[in-house]
């Protein structure tokens, strides 16, 4: 019992010393909670309006017929796009694409209506800017759909003229309709999904960087790591005591952002709350250990931060949220597996979005835990090495 109290005292001393350090640095305090929450607000604002509406496009109508005007009207009526420009030529349309004023140009050539009536199957061309892939493909899909509706209408008329009844004529237009539905996330709330994935990725940077700062600051300080080690008593307690203030704060930030997401922003939570809390905790620990290990390898604070930046900064691309993991090269697959956030996001998706049973999530949870243990082990090992080396250096300095 007494031994246990002693253990706790070591942890508490390291914990309190770290709190005092934080208290003495307003910059560090700012980066603990206000800054990540501010960034979350910024990102939420970026995606606040949901899927884009009324994306501007241009129309080159060289036909000026009833049919061409009908096409323009139907295209304009789709919620995603708005016909913002009537260009007189294709080169004018191209200029609108280049200056970013339009995402697509619809070309309706002269004699389109006449050729339709004569059964010559004229061609309407949709040029869209696929360099801006998100809006470009959205525009292409909705404009293509609208023009398809016009073509379907003509096709139905032609069949009715041949003696078919309207019912079978309209069925014949799309003989194999695809009823596509989402197995999970049925409302296709892609935007919320993206936001929910970006936030932990940004937090991973914060968590790793704060741990790196905490450890490398000690190494740089006058007393060095030795003082921290003496405060804590043992390696384990020192590391735990130093990191605990950050663990608590970032857990609160992580859950605070979740509370906003599932509360006011109305995202559906379909998973197991206890499990969500558990892997959130392991995620924070693993990210901290990653930062701490980086700090102990690096030579000074700036390189420690740079190392954390290099590892966690580009992480989003590797998580497979935007470009899927199944299409990545070998290096990216391995690298992604070394990042805590990859597993955390997979667990989130499985639990919250898919409501998957626990055994499905077991491999990802095991990977996340393994990362925490590996980085944690590396941190302890490095701390031990530094603790041993220090007296030697002191002797050298003395002689």
């Amino acid at each position, binding site marked *: 019992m007494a031994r246990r109290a002693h253990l706790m005292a070591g942890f508490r001393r390291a914990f309190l010393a770290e709190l005092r350090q934080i208290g003495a640095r307003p910059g560090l305090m700012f980066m603990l909670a206000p800054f990540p929450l501010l960034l979350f607000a910024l990102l939420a*604002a970026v995606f606040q309006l949901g899927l884009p509406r009324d994306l501007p496009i241009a129309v080159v109508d060289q036909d000026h017929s009833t049919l061409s005007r009908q096409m323009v009207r139907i295209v304009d009526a789709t919620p995603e796009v708005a016909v913002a420009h009537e260009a007189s030529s294709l080169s004018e349309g191209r200029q609108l694409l280049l200056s970013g004023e339009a995402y697509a140009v619809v070309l309706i050539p002269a004699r389109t209506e006449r050729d339709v009536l004569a059964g010559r*199957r004229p061609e309407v*061309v949709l040029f869209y800017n696929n360099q801006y*892939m998100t809006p470009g493909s959205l525009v292409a899909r909705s404009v293509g759909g609208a023009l398809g509706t016009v073509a379907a209408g003509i096709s139905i008329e032609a069949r009715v003229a041949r003696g078919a009844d309207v019912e079978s004529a309209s069925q014949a237009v799309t003989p194999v309709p695809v009823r*596509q539905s989402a197995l999970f996330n049925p409302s*296709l709330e892609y935007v919320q999904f993206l936001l929910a994935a970006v936030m932990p990725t940004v937090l991973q940077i914060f968590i790793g960087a704060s741990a790196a700062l905490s450890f490398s600051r000690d190494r740089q300080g006058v007393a060095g790591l030795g003082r921290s080690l003496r405060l804590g008593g043992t390696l384990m307690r020192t590391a735990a005591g130093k990191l605990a203030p950050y663990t608590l704060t970032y857990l609160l930030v992580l859950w605070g952002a979740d509370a906003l997401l599932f509360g006011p922003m109305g995202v559906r939570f379909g998973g197991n709350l206890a499990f969500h809390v558990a892997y959130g905790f392991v995620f924070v620990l693993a990210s901290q250990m990653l930062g701490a290990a980086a700090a102990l390898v690096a030579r000074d604070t700036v390189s420690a931060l740079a190392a954390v930046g290099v590892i966690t900064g580009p992480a989003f691309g590797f998580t497979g949220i935007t470009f899927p993991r199944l299409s990545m090269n070998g290096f990216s697959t391995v690298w992604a597996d070394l990042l805590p956030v990859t597993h955390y996001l997979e667990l989130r998706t499985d639990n919250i979005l898919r409501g998957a049973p626990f055994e499905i999530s077991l491999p990802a949870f095991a990977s996340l835990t393994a990362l925490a243990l590996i980085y944690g082990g590396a941190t302890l090992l490095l701390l031990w090495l530094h603790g041993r080396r220090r007296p030697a250096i002191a002797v050298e300095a003395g002689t």
Partner: protein
Amino acid sequence: MIAAFFHEIAIAIMAIWTDKGARSTMLGATLFFSVFFPQPYLSEVVRDMPVAIIDQDGSTLSRELIRRIDAADAVAVARYAPDMPSARALFLKREVYGIVVVPPKFEHDLLAGRAAPIAAFSDGGYFLLNSVMSSALSNATRSLGAEVQVGRLTASGVDMAQAMAVVEPLRVTTVALFNPTGGYASFVLPAVFVLILQQTLLMGIGNLKAGRRSAGGLSTLADAIVYVGLYSLWAGVVLVVLPWVYRLPRIGDVAVMYAVVVPFLCAVTAMGLAVARLIPTKEGVIFFLVVLGMPLFFLSGVSWPSEAMPKLLHAVAFIIPSTTAVPALVRVNQMGADVRSVETAILIQLGLCLAYSILAMVVGRPKGKPAA
């Protein structure tokens, strides 16, 4: 005077080389990030995304439809599942990323001229996989449906040309411009490369200048010229050579590119000097910039259209050079825009350069804190 100026230039160059932090950000990190960042995207497109099929019809036409789905580059029929629960289990294990159900009587209905719907399930969370799936399915169903229809019409005595005109009276051709294959690397990297230039330049300046007092006007000017000069070279590497190495489409005029790049780098340099005065420690500057990278990418409007952002946010984002420079450079390099199409962006960069220079001078003057 001129000799003094060249002396300052030499000092500025030496400062980058001798400061370890500056050397590793302005020389090392720029190259490192440009090689590291593209890795996840290098395969450009999704190929052979595994899907599961539940074929409840088992007919010639259902097999033909499945063959056509499998023929799409992006999708591969990986598994046949007997029912929905087992297909769902495959989906949860991430062995398949989509499920297609061909209902019974598919062939029967199709040949009788009735609509023969199929059902498809995908994961609404993944935008790209979702759209890959729907385009593969719509191509397969449309081509099969049209063939069956034309077959029915010609069998009833209509000639081929007329049958085609009934089935498809108006052809809608869709042409993807600038990134014809829809490659993800081609889409993301040109924007990311510009951001890498901005962020590493800011970090480098932070390393050199954070918490230090200004060494006078001439020296600061020499520093700025050296930074802009160095990064103009980097711009050539990152925006011209690397796209060539990665085979990204690039059709722009290099002269037009520099007409945007130089004002952009001036604005970034001025911003860097101002930020270095505002945030007193190196660590603070670097941390601030690392964290800001991703939000800035989303704000540039390349991956997420600026039309879909709140107006106020978009207006505030203009104070960051990349917000306007990223789209301008993408338009020049990847879309072949001329100077006229990006003149607004150039003017904004020059305005920002001026504003940040003034800010840096104002902040730099009165306090003059001792170096940390």
